[in-house]
């Protein structure tokens, strides 16, 4: 198990490097292929009608005129060793992992991501708990009561839930529950440490909107998995042994059903930790998702790189945890 983890950690580092290379390539090489020079690239980071000297200056400051491999080298070095930054009047040291300074605001990227992370974490984990518990429960009940009104209704609703995009359900939720009937007025993020009750209250709408999508998916998955599992031979054996039906369902059936669900859950959560973009934009939550949108809109390479790598990191770690978890839960994988 330990060698397994170590090997995977190495693979993680390798993967992150590849991700950063690809991001770099997309940012620089593709426009280059369209004929863009570094001077032209630099213009978008200066005000309107800049003088030539101004553009050259910013080009130099941002390092855009250096060859790509050099820029990439600087980027890697900063992550591993940190870098020094001159704000004009003073020089500060940006400790590793240093994701550089925003092209737009010239402020360090890492502290911004760190301050945005709790928002995304709150949103993602809260929604995850809701969708996992809710979706799985509904799925189990639907499977056990297959064909009944409850089953048909819940699967119908689930189909709707899976099909409706978040920017739609989110806006509807806001329209209804924040403005029309001010049950949740003024939904703005309050940090957990400042005011836990308000933190939760203001996150309820985004939690449920985000969870609805996944809960629907998980209900359907759990139902399908449960139905499949309950038709397995070992369930028949369990019954043949004279076990109580309750034990058959929960000890034998659920355990087998949940394993793939848990792995999917790990993947979904990992993906969300990199930023629940649409939910955050809809509800104006300053998390990594919103940060990503701003970074892309501003063509802010250090920010884009930073958030991409962070998101990739979460996904890879989630993958790793899921794989380990699977080995723990399913003995067949271990041997």
């Amino acid at each position, binding site marked *: 198990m330990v060698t397994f983890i170590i090997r995977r950690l190495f693979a993680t580092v390798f993967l992150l490097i590849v991700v950063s290379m690809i991001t770099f390539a997309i940012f620089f090489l593709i426009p280059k292929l369209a004929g863009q020079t570094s001077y032209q690239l630099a213009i978008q980071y200066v*005000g309107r009608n800049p003088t030539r000297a101004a553009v050259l200056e910013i080009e130099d400051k941002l390092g855009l005129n250096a060859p790509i491999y050099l820029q990439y080298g600087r980027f890697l070095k900063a992550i591993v060793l940190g870098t020094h930054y001159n704000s004009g009047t003073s020089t500060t040291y940006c400790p590793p992992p240093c994701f550089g300074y925003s092209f737009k605001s010239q402020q360090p990227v890492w502290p911004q991501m760190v301050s945005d992370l709790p928002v995304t974490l709150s949103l993602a984990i809260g929604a995850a708990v809701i969708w996992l518990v809710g979706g799985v429960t509904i799925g189990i009940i639907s499977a056990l009561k297959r064909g009944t009104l409850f089953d048909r209704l819940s699967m119908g609703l689930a189909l709707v839930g899976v099909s409706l995009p978040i920017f739609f359900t989110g806006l509807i939720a806001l329209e209804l529950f924040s403005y029309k009937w001010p049950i949740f007025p003024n939904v703005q993020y309050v940090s957990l440490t400042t005011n836990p009750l308000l933190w939760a209250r203001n996150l309820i709408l985004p939690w449920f909107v985000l969870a609805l999508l996944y809960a629907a998916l998980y209900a359907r998955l759990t139902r399908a998995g449960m139905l499949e599992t309950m038709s397995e031979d070992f369930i028949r054996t369990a019954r043949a042994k004279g076990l109580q039906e309750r034990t058959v369902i929960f000890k034998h059936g659920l355990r087998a059903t949940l394993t793939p669900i848990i792995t999917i859950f790990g993947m979904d959560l990992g993906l969300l930790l990199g930023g629940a973009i649409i939910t955050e934009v809809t509800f104006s939550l300053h998390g990594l998702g919103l940060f990503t949108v701003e970074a892309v809109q501003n063509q802010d390479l250090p920010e884009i790189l930073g958030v991409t790598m962070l998101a990739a990191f979460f996904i890879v770690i989630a993958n790793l945890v899921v794989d380990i978890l699977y080995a723990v839960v399913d003995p067949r994988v271990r041997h």
Partner: protein
Amino acid sequence: MRRPRTIGLAAVGAVAALVAAACGGSSGGGTSGSSSSSASAFNAAVTHVVNPSTHKGGTIIFDNSTAPDSTDAGNTYYAFNLNFVMLYALPLTTYKSCPGTTCGNTIVPGLATTLGVGSDGNKTWTYHLKSGVKFEDGTPVTSQDVKYAVERTFDRGVLANGPSYFASLLAGNAASYKGPFKNRSKNLMALNSVDTPNSSTIVFHLNQPFADFNYVVAFPQTAPVPPNKDTGANYQNHPISTGPYKFQSYQLNKQYTLVPNPQWKPSWNPQVKQLASKIIVNLNVNANDIDNRLLAGDIQVDQAGTGVQAPARAKILSTPSLKADSDAPINAHEWFYYINTKVPPLNNLHCRMAVEYAYNKTNMQTAYGGPIAGGDIATTAMLPNILGFQKFDLYHALTKPSGDVAAAKQQLQECGHPNGFSTNIAYRSDRPREVASSQALQASLASVGIKTTLKGYTAANYYGTFAGVPTYVHSHDLGLLAGGWGPDWPNAYGWGWALYDAKAIVSAGNANISELNDANINKWFLAMEQTTSKSQSNAYANMINRQVMKDAAILPAVYAKALLYRPPGLTNVYVQPFYGMYNYGVLGTK
């Protein structure tokens, strides 16, 4: 001739207000010195101060769907931010705070005691500072602080965003000056074209006559910055205030909060007020949500000032009570298409004129959002609120708003392409209005045989890499290019030099995308640099405007409008014409 719609509606608003006043319905105590009507009606704030009041207290919350380019007053160029920084910055000159172009586009002294007077053929400009002005920490403001503020903008590696006028106009070592950050001991106060003979006098030496220099120093780049408290790129976290408010907190891209500056005195700048006891700005908020919050009264102002989104627009316009609390001013912006004068066959004037006659002006207006959300059909190459503007309509936009096919066809004959020709239309593909307008343009040109291909580009790179690069425009046959513009200051020079003067053409980031090189126009701009006569300036405005249209270098679409909503609890609300949105420096709460 059709009356501009805003004036008509404003008249209705004024009548309604008078009626309301007669019935004893006016609210708020006292006035703020300008037009006194206080009642709320549609477009009332365009010409009058709505809810004039001196009441202090309350919190004003601004929401913005993006973020300012920088909260550092010396590092910003966004229109809404030039408006907002007046709350904590005091440049040498500023605009008079009042509605209506006659009043509001007047330049008045700010930190300076009077407007600068140009000497030596308008190449030298001297300003005297008001006495007793202090920073928020009590330190007296000196002319060195103003010089330093200008100096620091020269280091574009640190402060990249602001205008470039000082770098191109100042004499002496300005061309090679790299700013006070690098090699500070040597370069601090080393810009030798700015003199500070004493702590209350500052003198600017230009390398050419420039009559509009008072407008140049109206930019907050001249708001004083204490050199020993400057933190360069980090100054945005807490700019040292010389205005009625100072920074209490700042979270990059998220929120900043201003509280009253106890040092401030109204005499320093009569154009702003210190009424609210707290100002909060929330950044990067969902645009539709901003409208909902405005209407629900959770926030007071949309900081971006470009109007509500389509759903809120529909709601406001269809609800009389909401409509009475809204205004549709000209948003200090014109949307148009450049007609490039070098890309064949548009290098032939008559081919360009054919395009001018042919396009469907009404469809254009609809594509940009219609009369209220898009704007008035534009017939000229200049905003109507530019000083000296005179209306004219060379290409029958108002008489034949769906296009003048006959005249277009005749022009096609004259340019040697009787059956039409082909060219490309460039536009920003992530701007839905430009997508729609390009399609409308394509359709109407097709009706006279002008075949066009649509070429979309991302907005971020549009000026830097594509439309703003003449070589690219030529090599890709981009004959028609979507664009928009707001003035740097409200006269023809501040509006149009970068658009129409041949000297403004640069190899990348070009704004004279038509590549217009009209000797007359060049001459008139040059003359404007030299004359301080208002009437002469106004005359030039009209001449330049007419000539650009005669040259068919610009295909006007709309004088942009924005539907703005003012919550009833907000006081001293009016549209400051230069910004095209509510004046943020004077707001209060009831």
